[in-house]
């Protein structure tokens, strides 16, 4: 009986202990639960930061570290200073030869460069820029006239030659000029196709209907507004006309 009592009292005591400890853990759990809303996002933030920093900053740095696995040039034979000098001299000779070839690519006669983005030109003589200024090039408007009639007003790019030069040019209006104005298209040689004085005093022909010519719309110089031709102001056009000959090169980019 006494033993039973003892067992009982021990069981009670242990039960009490369990209760106490469970209470304590509940208390601890409550206190830690209280801060979980701070701890968990903080932990996630730290992990994400470490990951992002590693992948965005550290890995590219690792990849950009010099490698130098063995020698760069493992096949090369150790050379003395005399053979190095000889090699370099030979290389320099080859370089000079290629450089001369490249220099000869630039025309010795006057030429013109035209930027279709900046709408600017540079005139060169004896391989030196002698004049520069504003111009107007193709507007990149796609005129949709329906019935398979579409025109795109872009200035062609590349190397061209002056095919012909003229003073007092007359503009023979193409079909798109009528379509653009909402007018019916006349016959190919109808009087209404010919306009006088709208192209300035000079025109230089590049071929395929493209020209360098003057303009009445000087306020638009420097902007991409044309139907593909290059418009210039009167002074610039005159200077270009007088400097470039038939066959002179025009580079449009």
């Amino acid at each position, binding site marked *: 009986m006494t033993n039973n009592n003892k067992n009982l009292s021990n069981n009670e005591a242990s039960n009490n202990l369990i209760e106490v400890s469970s209470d304590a853990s509940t208390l601890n759990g409550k206190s830690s639960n209280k801060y979980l809303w701070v701890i968990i996002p903080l932990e996630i933030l730290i992990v994400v930061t470490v990951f992002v920093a590693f992948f965005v900053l*550290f890995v590219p740095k690792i990849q950009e570290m010099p490698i130098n696995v063995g020698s760069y040039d493992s096949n090369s034979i150790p050379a003395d200073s005399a053979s190095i000098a000889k090699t370099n001299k030979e290389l320099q000779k080859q370089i000079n030869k290629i450089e001369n*070839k490249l220099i000869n690519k630039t025309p010795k006669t006057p030429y013109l460069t035209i930027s279709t983005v900046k709408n600017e030109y540079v005139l060169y003589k004896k391989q030196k820029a002698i004049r520069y200024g504003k111009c107007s090039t193709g507007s990149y*408007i796609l005129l949709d006239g329906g019935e398979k009639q579409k025109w795109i007003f872009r200035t062609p790019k590349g190397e061209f030659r002056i095919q012909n030069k003229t003073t007092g040019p007359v503009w023979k209006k193409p079909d798109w000029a009528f379509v653009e104005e*909402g007018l019916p298209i006349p016959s190919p040689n109808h009087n209404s196709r010919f306009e006088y004085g709208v192209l300035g005093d000079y025109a230089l022909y590049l071929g395929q209907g493209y020209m360098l010519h003057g303009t009445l719309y000087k306020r638009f110089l420097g902007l991409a507004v044309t139907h593909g031709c290059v418009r210039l102001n009167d002074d610039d056009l005159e200077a270009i006309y007088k400097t470039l000959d038939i066959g002179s090169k025009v580079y449009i980019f």
Partner: protein
Amino acid sequence: MKAFIVRIKYYLLFSIFLLGFIGFNAYLARQAVKTKLAEINQSDSISNTKGVLSSINRDENPEGYELIKEKAFLEAQIELSNSDSITLVIDLKDSLAVLQIKGVTVYTSKIIRYSYSALLNDISVPVYYKIFSKPLTVHQQLSTIAKEPIVIKIAPKDTIEAAKAEIVPDSVVNESVVLNFLVDEDILVVITNHEEEGSYFNQKLKWSYHFLKQLVELKKVDYQPTIKMVIPNDDIVVIYRALPWKARIAIKL
């Protein structure tokens, strides 16, 4: 206290896992560079290692190495000059980006800053010569602006509608431009301006995503050598709009 110790244990385990993961990825990232370098160096054929190229060791003869770079650059330009299209010549050493048409310089832009992957410094002299003595073909072009700023205009029905539909010209690009050219040997050429330098961080983020995606999909981690340069915004527009889709570039590192 017990809960705290458990938490510390959990942190330690997680930190070990994280460090292991980071270490493993750092190894993979580094290995990708080494594999790419080995791939590029292997593309060197025996015929190219003959002659003066194989005798140059850049540690012994740095001047010779510079001359080889110059020679390769000029040879690439000679090949470009035989092409009809507009080409880009990038001289990182002299900080110049030049547009050429048939070997004639038509536009020059100053490179403000540049950097390139360390891998490109680690390729052997014959391999450097093999890659850069020929123009690099652009296989893919990505840009933040349109190649051709085409505006569609529906033809007016009559003169009244034509007068109403007059388009005010505005060809100026005000937005910041970023160009990405993917060229031979999987080299990425990034052309950006001052303002958009921050986008390089975005690119790193995209790259990190690409890296992680490869890991998740259990694919071989790859590496892309990059040449990055900062040039003025206007010049980027000129270069991008002048170059054809299948552009060719000569580069000197």
